[in-house]
């Protein structure tokens, strides 16, 4: 019972779980969020005036919700992850996925957005019965080419995908191009953001915020993709 009582009161008072390194209370006090940026369009990219991209918008909104402003730090994933691991950064964005090999070193949110990778076809063309032997356009250098090959189709590497041919891409991109999605799914990418390890109160705060943004994400991605 000695264990149970504080647990129950913990549900009520709401400031639990706490951060061992006090990230949340420091952000609220100093009104600054240190955000690490790893370039990865359309999630994070260099815009005409400062950082842009879907996750940059989300980070800006999150900081705003705490009455704080973001401080941006551009860099590579290795350096930024190490900074995060050592509490030199509060948040790291860059189109990270739940499968990141850094999961044991830093804190990860639960996936806040899932991109489904689909095959889309031009409107009016007949839906394929099977992908076997079909030629499917894939943006050159994308790992989707491997998934297309696994399905027995032939990936056609193109510099930029277009609405004119059968194409493999994320669901929001298929919709944006005006392609018609088929029933063929090539996998899913589960997107997360990273925080310092063990800062469970901070992690909880950002997860609750991201849950409110889910519906906005495809729109943000589409705008970022067209360079807006």
């Amino acid at each position, binding site marked *: 019972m000695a264990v149970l009582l504080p647990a129950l009161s913990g549900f009520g008072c709401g400031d639990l*779980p*706490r951060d061992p390194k006090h990230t949340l209370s420091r952000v609220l006090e100093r009104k600054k969020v240190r955000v690490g940026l790893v370039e990865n369009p359309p999630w994070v990219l260099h815009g005409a005036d400062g950082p842009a991209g879907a996750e940059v918008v989300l980070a800006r909104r999150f900081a705003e919700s705490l009455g704080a402003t973001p401080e941006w730090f551009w860099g590579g994933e290795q350096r930024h992850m190490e900074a995060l691991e050592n509490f030199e950064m509060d948040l790291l964005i860059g189109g990270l996925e739940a499968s990141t090999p850094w999961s044991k070193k830093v804190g990860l949110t639960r996936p806040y957005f899932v991109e489904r990778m689909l095959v889309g076809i031009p409107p009016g063309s007949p839906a394929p019965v099977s992908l076997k032997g079909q030629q499917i356009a894939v943006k050159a250098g994308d790992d989707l080419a491997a998934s297309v090959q696994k399905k027995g189709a032939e990936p056609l590497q193109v510099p930029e995908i277009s609405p004119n041919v059968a194409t493999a891409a994320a669901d929001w991109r298929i919709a944006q191009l005006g392609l018609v999605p088929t029933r063929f799914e090539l996998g899913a990418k589960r997107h997360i953001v990273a925080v310092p*390890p063990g800062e*469970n*109160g901070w992690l*909880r705060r950002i*997860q609750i915020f991201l*849950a409110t943004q889910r519906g906005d994400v495809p729109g943000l991605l589409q705008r970022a993709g067209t360079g807006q």
Partner: protein
Amino acid sequence: MNAVGTKYDLPPDREATINRAKRVEWASLVFLLSTVVLMWLVMGSSQTMKAMWIEDTLSLIPTVSFLIGVHFRGRPPTEEYPYGYRRAVLVGFMCGAVALFGFGIYIALDSIMKLIAAEHPSIPTVRVFGVHIWLGWMMLAVLLYSVIPPIVLGRLKAPLAHELHDKTLHVSAAIDKGDWLSGLAGAAGMLGIAFGFWWADSAAAAFISVEIVRDGYQNLSNATAQLMDRRPSDVETNEKDPAIDHLQDALNRLEWVAKARVRLREQGDILIGEAFVVPRQQTDLLARLDEARQLAGTIDWRLHDINIVLVRSME
């Protein structure tokens, strides 16, 4: 046709006790399985939960061993298995003990390394039916759920183990005690994380792992002793089983016996073995052997299949 041992039947009152023990162990099994599933669902990256999950999973071993043993031990001996099936369970028991011991050491080292490396456990928040719940609270709930049944079940098992002289059942009761102790330690660790003490998780796990190693060692030495046909011992105190001396004394009291020496081993819950007897005279020995054999059956309900061996002298 070769010599095949005779079938052993428990006295009727013990039969009722066995059935009661079976019910308790089935309840244990159902409860343990439910904890194992629940813990697996909420485990996440918590070191405590990993330790508890392994402990609870391996706690299934004595319970399952007992149930399998009870099932098989009633089978009569056959031509191929002339000593019967009462030791069938020992194989599984030994493997389980090795696993428990090994995992305990692994968790202990893993937790200590994490403490040294100052790893901070990240525990996310999940959304259940639209409500955001920190996974740590769910872990705490599961840990508290896992504490209560072993307190009850362990207390039910201990006297049954004593009455039935069943070592598997005894180990199962001992492990129940370890389970609820480590459940409480785990809950304390989880609360520690909630209050911002990152080390609480690994510290609790290290404590639990000590418990697992202890369980493992206990089982291992028990199984080894049984495999080596160690002298029968009391279920709880581990001291020499009085049945050995009782039988020897009774044989020595027979007027045709000059000297008797008894050697016994455990066959699960029952005792088998040999009594070496030096007779005073050599007349009418067959009838006297029958008398001695019948006497053995009346000394203790566990004595079974005792071979009386006539020898000229003890040297």
